[in-house]
C-alpha cells in the first residue's frame, strides 16, 4: 500500500468515526406550531405537554403573559408566545396546548397551537434567523433549522421568558 493510499484510508476512517460523534451531538427539540409556522425548544427544557384548561387571565399583566393555569393543582404562569413574537393573536385558546418548562425559578409554560414532532438537530445545521425577520423577533431565537415540515425557529427561552 502506498503512502497516499494509507493517508486516504486514515482520512476515510476519520470521516466514518466522525459521523457517529455528530449523531451523538444532535439535540432533540420539541417542534410546535403557532399558526402555520413551526418553532422548537430543546427537549431538556420541556417538563410536560398538556391541554390548556382553566387559563385565568391576570388583570394588569404584561402582554406576553396569557395568565395562570391550574395544572393538576400546581399553578403555572402561562406565557403568550404569539404576543412575545409579535404574531397575530389567536381567537381562542380552547384547543391550545400548554408546554410546561423546566429550569426556571417560577413554574412557567408556553401556550402553543399544536405539537408537531420531536426533531434531532445538530449544531452544524443551525443557521441564523432569516434577515427578513424583524430584529425584535429575531432576538427571541438562537437560530433556525430545516426540518421536514419547514424552517423551524429555535426559541431562545431565556430571552422569551424575560418579560
Amino acid at each position, binding site marked *: 500500500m502506498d503512502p497516499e493510499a494509507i493517508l486516504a484510508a486514515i482520512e476515510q476512517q476519520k470521516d466514518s468515526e466522525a459521523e457517529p460523534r455528530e449523531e451523538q451531538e444532535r439535540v432533540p427539540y420539541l417542534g410546535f406550531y403557532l399558526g402555520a409556522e413551526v418553532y422548537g425548544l430543546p427537549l431538556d427544557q420541556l417538563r410536560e405537554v398538556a391541554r390548556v*384548561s*382553566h387559563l*385565568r*387571565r*391576570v*388583570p*394588569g*399583566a*404584561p402582554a406576553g*403573559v396569557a*395568565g*395562570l*393555569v*391550574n395544572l393538576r*393543582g*400546581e*399553578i403555572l*404562569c402561562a406565557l403568550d408566545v404569539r404576543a412575545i413574537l409579535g404574531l397575530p393573536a389567536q381567537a381562542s385558546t380552547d384547543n391550545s396546548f400548554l408546554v410546561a418548562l423546566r429550569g426556571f*425559578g*417560577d*413554574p*412557567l409554560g408556553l401556550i402553543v397551537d399544536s405539537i408537531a414532532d420531536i426533531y434531532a438537530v445538530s449544531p452544524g445545521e443551525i443557521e441564523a434567523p432569516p434577515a427578513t425577520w424583524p430584529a425584535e423577533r429575531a432576538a427571541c431565537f438562537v437560530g433556525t433549522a430545516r426540518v421536514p415540515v419547514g424552517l423551524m425557529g429555535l426559541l431562545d427561552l431565556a430571552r422569551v421568558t424575560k*418579560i
Partner: protein
Amino acid sequence: MTATTGPISLLVFEAADCLMAIPASEVAHLEGSDPLFTKIENWAAFDLDTYFGGRESDGPWLRWGRGSRSAWLRVRRVVDVVPVALSVLTPMPALFRRQLRTRAFLAAGVRGEDVFLLLDPARLTS
C-alpha cells in the same frame, strides 16, 4: 409540640374578569352599589374593574380594613367565603411582582378547578 397553621377564611369575589380573594376577617362589611358614600367619607376607594383597566363596575362595595389602614373596594360580585390552607397558596411569579398593578397580588390559589388571586388591598395605589 408543633405549631400548625390552620386554614384561613377567604372572601372570594369577581372583579376585572378574574377571581380574587381577600381575608374575610379584613372585610368589615358589604355595601350596596351606590357610590355616594365614597364622596361623603374621605376614604380611599378602588373600583377594581377600572383599577385593572376595565369599565366601571356596577357591583357592591366592600369595606376593607387592616389595623389603621382601610379602603372601599368595588367588586363585580361576591362569590363565596371559603377556608383555604396556606399551603395551597402559591406566591405570585416574579414577573407579576415587578408590575405596578399586579404587585397587588400576593399569591394564587386553586378553588375547584379555577385559579384565584389573593389580593393585598394595602398594595393598591391611587
